[in-house]
């Protein structure tokens, strides 16, 4: 049983501390939709998504009402589209358009899986598929794309990294009228996970089942609030507070995930134990780090504080859920976190520090606006650095940067909604084009040989 104080604590978490289920994501295998032409495949994809996804939004809304916990986003992730269109890669956008139409009609806010996995080599069909990404991201509304360019088992495909530098830049140019927002829907991964419920990097892995519900929990405001009661606690005790709070948040996610899976006739997949910020005040990961005793996020000590936070969230969450997965950790997207935005505006945090932070948390260089004239080879080099961190440390890393067309350091960009706004941050002016231009594959690290 539970007592009155526990009831009121939960109500307060929702009403004042922004506790929510960040996303209920329905993972759908589309492998059975492959037909002899792109047009027929697109139709089969549309029919299947409409059929399997028809109850997603009403079910999530009903759960939200019954349990009293907001479910912010309802999303769908699908089999990497590059696999579905391998026989006619030039026409891959037809499938994207069908998916976008289905997403709009179902009322889901994003659909992820316009993806390719090229970590050990890029097949000819994949090369053609990659070339369609800028067109798709500039002509669809809700489609998200991701490309896996490296893994701890296989190394880093630098040819694909170089290509992705160009594709990020091209995507920004094609969406120039909205500050390059297309790049906010494009993630370049190392060690991409197959059950990630969060966008823009969600796709439904080949190894996954037919229909799966994955849930992403959130609640940075709740953790911040809990820490504010123990301002003098040492870091061992502070970690304990975070752990206990993460447990409660995750249990809510687990309950919703199981119930959603049952009602949708799908399997319960995983709960992703992530602290995902939003630009709303009181919903910031940066503010948690500052609550731990930093004058500003980005100063020395930030990496240690983030490492502790990330680890404590995992420990509390793992205890609370029967199956965890996805990215699971703290997210540090600049434009989506009011504390990060303010630190970046004041010049208190740099891309180099953000890179260091990605060594100890669950994602990578995320939602960072950079000057529009940044060379493709520099963007590729940023991707290579992040991929190296992921490869060596056997963790997921990613890059989602926005080279804002026509913008320079000191300007700002605004994407609206959960994608937020951010100042354009300076990029190191040195040239990595010769390094990236060498191409080839960075071999897998020695510790990958575990068989």
């Amino acid at each position, binding site marked *: *049983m*539970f007592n*009155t104080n*526990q*009831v*009121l*604590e*939960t*109500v307060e978490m929702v*009403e004042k501390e922004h506790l929510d289920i960040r996303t209920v994501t329905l993972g759908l295998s589309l492998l059975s939709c492959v037909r002899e032409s792109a047009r027929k495949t697109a139709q089969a994809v549309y029919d299947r998504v409409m059929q399997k996804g028809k109850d997603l939004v009403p079910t999530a809304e*009903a759960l939200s*009402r*019954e*349990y*009293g*916990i907001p479910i912010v986003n309802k999303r769908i992730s699908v089999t990497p589209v590059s696999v579905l269109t391998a026989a006619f890669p030039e026409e891959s956008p037809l499938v994207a358009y069908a998916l976008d139409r289905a997403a709009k009609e179902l009322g889901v806010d994003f659909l992820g899986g316009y993806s390719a996995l090229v970590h050990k080599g890029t097949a000819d069909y994949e090369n053609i598929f990659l070339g369609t990404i800028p067109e798709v991201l500039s002509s669809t509304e809700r489609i998200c794309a991701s490309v896996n360019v490296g893994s701890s088992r296989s190394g880093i495909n630098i040819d694909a990294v170089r290509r992705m530098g160009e594709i990020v830049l091209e995507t920004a140019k094609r969406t120039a009228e909205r500050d390059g927002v297309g790049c906010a829907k494009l993630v370049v991964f190392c060690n991409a996970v197959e059950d990630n419920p969060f966008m823009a990097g969600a796709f439904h892995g080949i190894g996954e089942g037919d229909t799966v519900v994955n849930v992403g929990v959130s609640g940075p405001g709740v953790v911040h609030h809990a820490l504010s009661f123990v301002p003098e606690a040492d870091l061992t005790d502070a970690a304990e507070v975070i752990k206990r709070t993460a447990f*409660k*948040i995750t*249990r*809510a996610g*687990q*309950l919703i995930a199981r119930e959603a899976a049952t009602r949708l006739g799908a399997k319960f997949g995983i709960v992703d134990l992530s602290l995902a910020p939003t630009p709303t005040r009181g919903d910031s990961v940066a503010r948690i780090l500052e609550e731990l005793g930093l004058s500003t996020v980005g100063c020395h000590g930030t990496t240690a504080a983030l490492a502790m936070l990330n680890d404590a969230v995992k420990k509390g969450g793992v*205890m609370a859920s029967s199956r965890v997965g996805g990215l699971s950790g703290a997210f540090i997207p600049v434009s989506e976190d009011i504390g990060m935005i303010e630190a970046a505006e004041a010049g208190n945090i740099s891309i180099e520090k953000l890179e260091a932070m990605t060594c100890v948390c669950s994602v990578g260089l995320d939602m960072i606006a950079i000057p529009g004239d940044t060379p493709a080879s520099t963007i590729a080099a940023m991707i290579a650095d992040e991929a190296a961190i992921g490869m060596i440390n056997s963790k997921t890393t990613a890059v989602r940067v926005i080279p804002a067309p026509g913008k320079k350091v000191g300007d700002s960009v605004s994407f609206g909604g959960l994608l937020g706004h951010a100042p354009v941050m300076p990029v190191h002016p040195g040239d990595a084009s010769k390094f990236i231009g060498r191409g080839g594959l960075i071999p897998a690290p020695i510790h990958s040989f575990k068989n």
Partner: protein
Amino acid sequence: MSAVVTVTGTDRKGVIAEVSGFLFRHNVNIEDVSQTILGDQFAMVMMVDVSGIGTEFSALAKGLDELGKEIGMNIRLQHGEIFDAMHNV
């Protein structure tokens, strides 16, 4: 099925009467009530049994939400499971 009604807001006359009257009219059995006032802040938690309601659970929740707006309080109806899940190992 057990559920929890929470009522929070600035204290005023007749809150308990309004809420319990609404629950009575919808055939909800109140099993336990706990109520506190801190300063002028009113907080009430009711454990209720909703097995006998003639409508959907979410319709009842909506009705309570609307009643809350009418009388200037926040009223929530939630499945009891959520509190068990969050606060018990």
